[in-house]
C-alpha cells in the first residue's frame, strides 16, 4: 500500500483556487455541500475548525451538544426526517469515540451522516499522544467509508467523496479524521463535487428478466404478502409503492423502519411484522404463497426462526444492496436496484387484483388481536395508565401528523404499533442497533430539520436518562421538541423478558428515578407529571399547544407487557398474544 492516498473521485465544475488553511477549507466544503447545521462538541484537536465555524456562524449553525453521542444522534435525527446528510463534529480521542454509538446506529439503519473528527498532529500519530485514538481503525466496521486526512490539500476531494458516499445508494455514515497540522496548513482551495467513484456502484443494475419474473409470480399469486422496509422511504418511492399495492391489491406489512411510508389508515396496510408486530401479518407470513420483500433486509427480529420462516412461499426481494440478497432468506427472484425505479417499472407489468378472501384473513386475525391486546392497550379498564392510551391521545391531539421519535424498549414497540402515521418519515427510531438514549438528541435534530412539523419524543425512564444531558441543548437552542417519558420505574423490556423467561428474577431492572419534572424545570423547560387517566388528555393538549419545548412525564402501569410477542428463536406463526 502506498503512503500517499489517491482518491478516485470523478468530479464536476472547475473553480478558481484560493489560498486558505485546512480548517477554513473544512467549513467551505460543508457550505459547498449545502450543510446548514452541524452538531458537535469542541476540543483541542478540532479547535482550528471551530475557530472557522465561529467566523462563519452567519452561514452555518453549530449546535453545541452536551455529549458527542448526543451530537451523533442529533445528526441522525436531522438526516432521518430530511433528505439531507446529518453532520456531527468532535475532537480527537474521547470526543471521537463518543461518536461511535451514533455511527454504528447510522450504519445499521442506513442513515446518511458525515462525522468529522480532529486528530493529533501527524508527527504524533501512533505515539499514544494526548487524546489520540485510532478512530479510523475503531470506526472501520461501523462506517460505510472512512478516511484520515494528514495534508490540507486532500480536504476538498475527501469531503466531496464523503458526502457522495454517505447519501448515494444505500446510505450510511462516513467518518473523516483530520490531523491538527492539516487544519493549520494553507493550500490552494478549490471545490469540486464528486459525481462518482470508480470502485463504487451505488445502485446495482437490474437484471433484465427479474422484473418480469417477479411480476409473473405476483400476478399468479393467490395469497401474496408484501413486507416493506425503509428502502421505500430512502428511495423516495412512497408514491410508486402505493400505486403498486393498490393496483395488485396486496396486503402490505412494514418493518419498524418502513413505518409511515404509507399512512397507517391505508386499507392495504396490515401492520407491523416482527417480534412485537401485529398478529395477522406475522401468522400469515407462514401462509402466503408469494412474499414480496421491498427495501427490507429480513432482520432476525422480523423473521424469528429462519428454519420456519415463510418456507411455503416464493420469495421476491426488491433490494438496492446486493449483499442483502440471500443473506438471511433464500430468494426465488431478486430485483436489484433502486426501489423508486424498480416499482415504477413493475407497475405496468402487474394485473389489477383485489385478493378479497385473502384480505379477509387479515381482518379476522386483527379482530383476535384487537380483542386480546389492542382493546386493553388503547381502552384500558384497569386503574393504571397504559402506554397505548398515551399514544392514542397523542394521535388525537396531533391528528396523526406528528413525527414520533422513539427511544428503545417497551414504549418504542408501543409507539410503533399505535402511533398514527399520516406522513412519510414520521417514525424516527433506532431499529437495528436498538440504542437506548437515541430519542432525545434525535428529536433535536428532527425538529431542527423540520421546524414546521410537530416532533414528539417518546422515551422510557431508562433510555431518557442515557442522554438526559441533551435537555441542555434543547434549552440553549430553544428547540420546541415535545418530550414524553413513559415512566414505569423499570427497564421495562428487560423486565418483561425476566418475567417471561427468567422466572421473574428482576435483576437490576428496577429504577429509582429522580424528580424528572424538577430536572426539566432546572433546564428552564416547561414540565408536568400525570399519574391519573383523568388528567391525561388535558396534559397532552397543554403540551401540544405549547410553542416551546415541553416535558411530560406519564406514570404508567409498572408491570405491563408488550404483546403480541414472538419469543427469540420461535417461528413468526407462533406469535403469543398473552
Amino acid at each position: 500500500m502506498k503512503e500517499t492516498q489517491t482518491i478516485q473521485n470523478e468530479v464536476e465544475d472547475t473553480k478558481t483556487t484560493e489560498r486558505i488553511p485546512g480548517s477554513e477549507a473544512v467549513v467551505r466544503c460543508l457550505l459547498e455541500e449545502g450543510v446548514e447545521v452541524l452538531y458537535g462538541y469542541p476540543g483541542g484537536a478540532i479547535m482550528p475548525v471551530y475557530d472557522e465555524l465561529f467566523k462563519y456562524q452567519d452561514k452555518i449553525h453549530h449546535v453545541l451538544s452536551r455529549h458527542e453521542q448526543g451530537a451523533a444522534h442529533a445528526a441522525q435525527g436531522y438526516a432521518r426526517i430530511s433528505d439531507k446528510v446529518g453532520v456531527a463534529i468532535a475532537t480527537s480521542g474521547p470526543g471521537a469515540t463518543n461518536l461511535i454509538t451514533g455511527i454504528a446506529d447510522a450504519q445499521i439503519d442506513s442513515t446518511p451522516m458525515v462525522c468529522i473528527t480532529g486528530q493529533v498532529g501527524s508527527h504524533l500519530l501512533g505515539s499514544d499522544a494526548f487524546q489520540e485514538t485510532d478512530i479510523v481503525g475503531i470506526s472501520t466496521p461501523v462506517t460505510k467509508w472512512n478516511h484520515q486526512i494528514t495534508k490540507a490539500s486532500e480536504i476538498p476531494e475527501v469531503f466531496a467523496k464523503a458526502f457522495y458516499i454517505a447519501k448515494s445508494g444505500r446510505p450510511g455514515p462516513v467518518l473523516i479524521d483530520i490531523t491538527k497540522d492539516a487544519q493549520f496548513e494553507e493550500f490552494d482551495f478549490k471545490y469540486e463535487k464528486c459525481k462518482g467513484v470508480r470502485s463504487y456502484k451505488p445502485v446495482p443494475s437490474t437484471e433484465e428478466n427479474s422484473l418480469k419474473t417477479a411480476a409473473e409470480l405476483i400476478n399468479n399469486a393467490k395469497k401474496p404478502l408484501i413486507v416493506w422496509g425503509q428502502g421505500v422511504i430512502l428511495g423516495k418511492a412512497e408514491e410508486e409503492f402505493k400505486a403498486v399495492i393498490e393496483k395488485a391489491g396486496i396486503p402490505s406489512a412494514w418493518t419498524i423502519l418502513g413505518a409511515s411510508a404509507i399512512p397507517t389508515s391505508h386499507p392495504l396496510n396490515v401492520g407491523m411484522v416482527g417480534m412485537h408486530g401485529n398478529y395477522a401479518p406475522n401468522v400469515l407470513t407462514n401462509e402466503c404463497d408469494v412474499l414480496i420483500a421491498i427495501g427490507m433486509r429480513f432482520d432476525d427480529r422480523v423473521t424469528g426462526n429462519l428454519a420456519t420462516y415463510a418456507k411455503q412461499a416464493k420469495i421476491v426481494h426488491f433490494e438496492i444492496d446486493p449483499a442483502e440478497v440471500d443473506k438471511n432468506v433464500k430468494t426465488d427472484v431478486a430485483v436489484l436496484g433502486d426501489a423508486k425505479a424498480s416499482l415504477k417499472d413493475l407497475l405496468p407489468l402487474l394485473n389489477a387484483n383485489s385478493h378479497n378472501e385473502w384480505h379477509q384473513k387479515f381482518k379476522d386475525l386483527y379482530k383476535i388481536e384487537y380483542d386480546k391486546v389492542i382493546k386493553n392497550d388503547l381502552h384500558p379498564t384497569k386503574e393504571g395508565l397504559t402506554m397505548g392510551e398515551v399514544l392514542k391521545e397523542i394521535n388525537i391531539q396531533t391528528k396523526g401528523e406528528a413525527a414520533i421519535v422513539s427511544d428503545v424498549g417497551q414504549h418504542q414497540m408501543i409507539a410503533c404499533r399505535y402511533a398514527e402515521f399520516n406522513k412519510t418519515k414520521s417514525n424516527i427510531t433506532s431499529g437495528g442497533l436498538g440504542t437506548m438514549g437515541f430519542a432525545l438528541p434525535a428529536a433535536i435534530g428532527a425538529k431542527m430539520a423540520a421546524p414546521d412539523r410537530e416532533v414528539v419524543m417518546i422515551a422510557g425512564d431508562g433510555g431518557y436518562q442515557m442522554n438526559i444531558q441533551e435537555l441542555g441543548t434543547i434549552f440553549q437552542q430553544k428547540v420546541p421538541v415535545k418530550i414524553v417519558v413513559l415512566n414505569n420505574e423499570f427497564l421495562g423490556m428487560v423486565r418483561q423478558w425476566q418475567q417471561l423467561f427468567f422466572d421473574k428474577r428482576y435483576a437490576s431492572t428496577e429504577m429509582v428515578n429522580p424528580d424528572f419534572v424538577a430536572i426539566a424545570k432546572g433546564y428552564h423547560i416547561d414540565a408536568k407529571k400525570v399519574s391519573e387517566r383523568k388528567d391525561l388528555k388535558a396534559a397532552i393538549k397543554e403540551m401540544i399547544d405549547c410553542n416551546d419545548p415541553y416535558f411530560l412525564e406519564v406514570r404508567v402501569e409498572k408491570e405491563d407487557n408488550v404483546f403480541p410477542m414472538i419469543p427469540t428463536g420461535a417461528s413468526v406463526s407462533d406469535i403469543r398474544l398473552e
Partner: protein
Amino acid sequence: MENEKKQYTVSIYTENNIGLLNRISAIFQRRHMNVESLNTSPSEIAGVSRFTLVVNITESQMKKVIGQIEKQVEVIKAYYHTEDEIIYQESCLFKIKSELLFDERQIQNIIKESNARIVTVNKDFFAIEKSGRKEEIDLLYRELNAFGIMQFTRSGRVAVTKEEMRISTMLEAFQH
C-alpha cells in the same frame, strides 16, 4: 454440499488505498473465519491492487462474504475460486547451517530433486528458496527438518485463474 467446508482462494481487486486491508480482514474476523493465507500486490491494471486470500469455509458462507467484500466502497470486484479453477504458487525460504551442506550429502540431493534454489551461502548458513504448491513445500520442509532448520518462512498464496477474468473490461465500463 453448500454447507461442506472447502478451501477457496479469493481474489479481490481494489483501489490502492490505506485502510482497506483493515476493512477486508474485519469481514472475516467478525464471522470467526480464519484467513489461512493473505497476499497483496499490484494487479495487471495500473493503480489497482489485488488481494489473494485463502479460506476454509462453506460455499454459502463464501458467497455471503464476497457480497460483503464487494460492498466496501473501494473494492472494485471480488471473486472466489475452487482449487481446480486456479494456478497457484507459494514461496518459502529455509535457513540451514552451512556445515550440513557439506556434511550431509543427502541435502544436496533434496535441493536438486525438489527444484529448490540456493540463494546464498556463507560460513555460518545457507538459504534455500522454493516456489511451488503447498504440498511440495510441505514435503521439502519435512525432508529438511530431519537435518535441522534454523529459520523457515513461507509466503501467502499467489494465484491466477485458468479462465480469463474480465476485470479489465469491467473496469473500463466503470469509467463514466
